């Protein structure tokens, strides 16, 4: 047994959950303290979001700590962090997390829909959260000019009618339109496309879409009420909007949207495969083809062991055979004839649909 490295910080808390929660809330308070120039610029209209964010953090840590304890997840997180500084990390991250190149390969329609939803949401968060915690705000020191203040520093002064100012005021309208377009595309696909319809569920697939569209529409309605109705209904609408965002935040760690905080793991997975693949490859115990890194092969065998699954045969563990040999070995178990020992490539396995 390895001796556990006992950390005094860990001892101070009842659980990982308590520690993460404490550190996150502390971090938020410190950032807000700095951002608001010692709490002198707090916008209390946005109070609901603050409470929402804290409840969200509770759900988030609860869900993700439980998930991180699963043996395969633990391995990929641990080794992923170790390999974070590979040369290819920036390129992989951009392709996996920003441009979604792999979704493009699933279909241009699916890519467009996700690009609009994903970036629409990110854009709104990048504007909303700094405002909520008062990390960013606008002041008018000189008539006709706004100063953008980020974390207490004056970033720039722009004309109130200029392009940058217009883009800033309208950032949330633009992002709302992006999300609405993307969600409508997703809804259309879920209603019409037989491939998408096959195994969708209301709670899992439709609910997040409905919540996103509800947020975007109520958000746009705020602008509409300001511009066209001279603020009529603005207060009620802002409450509805605020509640819908809070409910979505609380739901986020549990349903389909849980993929957002956790997709960065795809970068870990790519690094893990690349790095250990360069180190040493596992040769199939039957045909000798190198089919996976030695590290991953061992990790999988170990994870299966933890789950009380052992596929040990006389000469090998089944995970040590390349996939075609493993399939042929199975046929051999069915028929009694050692198909995997016949040196013939598998034929005709892909039908054209």
């Amino acid at each position, binding site marked *: 047994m390895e001796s556990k490295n006992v950390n005094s910080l860990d001892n101070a808390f009842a659980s990982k959950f308590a520690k993460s929660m404490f550190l996150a809330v502390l971090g938020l308070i410190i950032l807000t303290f700095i951002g608001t120039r010692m709490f002198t610029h707090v916008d209390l209209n946005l109070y609901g979001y603050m409470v929402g964010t804290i409840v969200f953090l509770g759900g988030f840590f609860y869900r993700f700590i439980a998930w991180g304890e699963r043996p*395969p997840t633990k391995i990929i997180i641990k080794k992923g962090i170790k390999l974070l500084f590979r040369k290819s990390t920036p390129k992989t991250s951009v392709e996996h997390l920003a441009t979604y190149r792999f979704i493009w390969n699933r279909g241009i329609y699916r890519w467009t829909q996700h690009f609009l939803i994903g970036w629409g949401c990110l854009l709104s968060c990048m504007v909303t959260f700094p405002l909520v915690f008062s990390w960013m705000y606008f002041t008018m020191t000189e008539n006709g000019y706004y100063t953008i203040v980020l974390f207490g520093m004056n970033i720039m002064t722009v004309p109130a009618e200029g392009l940058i100012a217009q883009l800033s005021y309208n950032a949330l309208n633009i992002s709302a339109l992006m999300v609405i377009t993307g969600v409508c595309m997703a809804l259309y696909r879920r209603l019409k496309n037989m491939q998408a319809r*096959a*195994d969708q569920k209301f709670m899992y697939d439709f609910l997040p879409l409905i919540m996103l569209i509800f947020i975007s529409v109520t958000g746009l309605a705020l602008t509409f009420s300001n511009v066209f109705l001279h603020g009529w209904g603005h207060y009620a609408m802002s409450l509805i909007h605020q509640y819908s965002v809070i409910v979505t935040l609380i739901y986020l760690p549990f349903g389909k949207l849980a993929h957002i905080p956790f997709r960065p793991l795809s970068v870990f997975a790519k690094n893990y495969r690349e790095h250990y693949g360069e180190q040493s490859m596992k040769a199939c115990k039957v045909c000798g083809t190198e089919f996976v890194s030695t590290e*991953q092969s061992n990790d999988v065998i170990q994870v299966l062991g933890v789950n*009380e699954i052992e596929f040990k045969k006389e000469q090998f563990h089944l995970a040590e055979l390349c996939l075609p040999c493993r399939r042929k070995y199975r046929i051999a178990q069915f*028929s009694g004839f050692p*198909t995997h020992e016949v040196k013939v490539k598998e*034929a005709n396995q892909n*039908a054209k649909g």
Partner: protein
Amino acid sequence: MKKRLYIELENCIGCRSCLAACTQCGGHEERNRNYVYDVNPLVNRQTMPLMCLHCVNPACARSCPAQAIQIHETGAVLSALVEKCIGCQNCTIACPYGIPKFDTEQNLMYKCDLCIDRTKDGIPPMCASVCPTNTLQWLTEVEIEAKQKQFNLDNGKWVTSMPYLENETNVKVNLPGILQGVTKLF
């Protein structure tokens, strides 16, 4: 009445109708998830199908760091959830039969989902509906039990999932004819 996929391996004539049919089920994106192998390719034409056996304790799902492989209430082990699969390929290494397929371009694993679009409503899976030789059948527990009785060998020669292979599986596999010299009429 709950039905299961039941495979009588030696009936297979290698027509590969099941591969073609598999591409056509909803959610399959026109890619098949099953296999047909020549048993002794240099000597004779005997073939056998190989598909996911829907393990009760599935190695693929247990090894998935992203919890992308869900188990349906019917026991079917589903294909990877498209937004969850992170492309690590653990599942392909873990499956004792080499079933899950991986698409590198899409960074996505896909596998047999027992045609969940159909079987959740009691409709037989695509492969079983088209198989011309009754290799792939869709049977009730009672019918499967009858098969098991009919072909009860009791000679230690069971190599298939009756009773079990590596694992308890939801799909039942049988090889009655070859082992018993039974002539079948259909």
